């Protein structure tokens, strides 16, 4: 059965209250806007890529606790990663929130496992995915707009 406390874990509530890397990045060389047309939420992800490595990442925007915490934890998880590593993480995160990740693979996700409760709330999967969609788009092209729909 879907559990509310499984969805709103303390880590998620904490990151909603005080998101990390929640700022504009003036010297970014990649930028993508993520839009969820269903709820009107939008956020921007900035990347500073150097030699194929994400040197810095930041985000700003409005959204629910799930989307904000997900973006916050995303920035922490991909900083310092190569493009390929980040893309692999996008895929694993997607599997996690849709409930298709094997148990033994969850460890590699670190703190992100806090979002495992989402698979019980399919309506909210898009909230958690918004910043990751934007990240993926920013890795692909310098200035992108993506939608969850």
């Amino acid at each position, binding site marked *: 059965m*879907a559990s*509310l406390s499984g969805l*709103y874990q303390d880590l998620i*509530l904490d990151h909603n209250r005080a998101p990390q890397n929640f700022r504009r990045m003036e010297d970014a060389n990649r930028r993508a806007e993520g839009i969820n047309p269903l709820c009107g*939420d939008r956020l921007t992800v900035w990347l500073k890529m150097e030699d194929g490595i994400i040197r810095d990442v930041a985000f700003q925007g409005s959204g629910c606790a799930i989307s904000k915490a997900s973006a916050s934890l995303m920035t922490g998880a991909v900083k310092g990663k190569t493009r390929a590593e980040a893309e692999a993480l996008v895929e694993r995160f997607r599997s996690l929130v849709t409930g298709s990740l094997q148990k033994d693979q969850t460890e590699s996700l670190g703190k992100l496992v806090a979002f495992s409760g989402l698979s019980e709330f399919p309506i909210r999967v898009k909230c958690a995915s918004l910043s990751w969609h934007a990240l993926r788009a920013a890795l692909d092209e310098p200035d992108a707009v993506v939608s969850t729909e």
Partner: protein
Amino acid sequence: MRGAAGQRGNRAVLAERIGSESAIAAPRPSRPAVPLDVERVRTDFPILQQTIRGKPLVYLDNAATSQKPRVVIDSMARFYAAENANIHRGVHHLSERATEAYDRVREQVARFINASSTREIIFTRGTTEGINLVAQSYGRTHLKPGDDIIITAMEHHSNIVPWQLLCEQTGAVLRAAPISDTGELDVEGYEQLLGDRTRLVAVVHVSNALGTINPIKRLVALAHERGIPVLVDGAQAAPHLRVDMQDLDCDFFVFSGHKVYGPTGVGVLYGREALLEQMPPYQGGGDMIATVTLQRSTWAPLPAKFEAGTPAIAGVIGLGSALEYVDKLGLDKIAAWEDELLGYATESVSQIEGVRLIGTARKKAGVLGFVMEGVHPHDIGTILDDEGIAIRAGHHCAQPVMERLGVPATARASFAFYNTFAEVDALANGLLTVKKMFA
């Protein structure tokens, strides 16, 4: 219709405090002033009898769609089980019965909104199709580059986008009358927009996001003084207010069946006969023609001219049952009960610290929009859902309204006559749970 003065006036009625189980200290009328036996009425709605995750369903998303009384469900099932046939075609018994049943609902709708004639009642798929029909049929034949269409800043997307499409096709310009911070239309601002080039006004009767009741009669009169026809989006008005075409004097009025306790997929366009007469068909097909040759066709008289193809026959029959149900209950009684509910909900919810109401017009119907400090409406929606309480969270298909009022989204509780004071308490208590969780 709730006025600010009315709210305070009702406090006398709301004198008696209910037991301590309610965490909210808003006074609740022990004996509501409106004689509506809500507990009995609720038994007419099968869907309301269920529990969600072990808790009784508290359905407060009526502005999205209303629930259906058993008579509506039964009449549609009966039609399919015993009367199903296509209309206006067959010479056989069933087709005759189906045609009769379908046409009877048209008479019923004409009475329900006090139209002059059944020729003024067009069945559509819903409000959206009704507006698109007027935009494409009336709009494309009457608008030229540089002409104006006037809407307001509180419209639903369905009363914005069809006009934007029309503007792209004709070179006309869409302008929106301003609204105040409380969500009231600025009537003076509206009047200033009406000009020599204004060809049409399209305005919402009751705002789906804010609950504001617009002064339609006045808006129509101001437009008519300048010879401008007016379309009224009545999607949220029809379930809550008595609407009278002769009294409102508008030229077009559209509403949806599913918001007046009928099925989805069916709606009504009222149009002044003289206007409908001169308008070209919206869609071509069966049922809307008089004669067809391979070279050209002639149109059927009203209302068939605007009903191409096989319509939602069972849906129309369900709509007929819904309107009959509403009529029996009495729209005045419904409006009065919902007014008390909204007044009580307004007091209960606004007392919660950190909650701010969005949409506080003096005259409102059915809708309580709000935001909570530090909590996104979606999270409110999910946590309330865990309590079995259904509300809507988001932009309510009214993004320009959200932008105007400076909020990305709101939470919205919307009421119907089958809602109770206890359900308002459940909402308020649920909001306290939200607050605790996000504290």
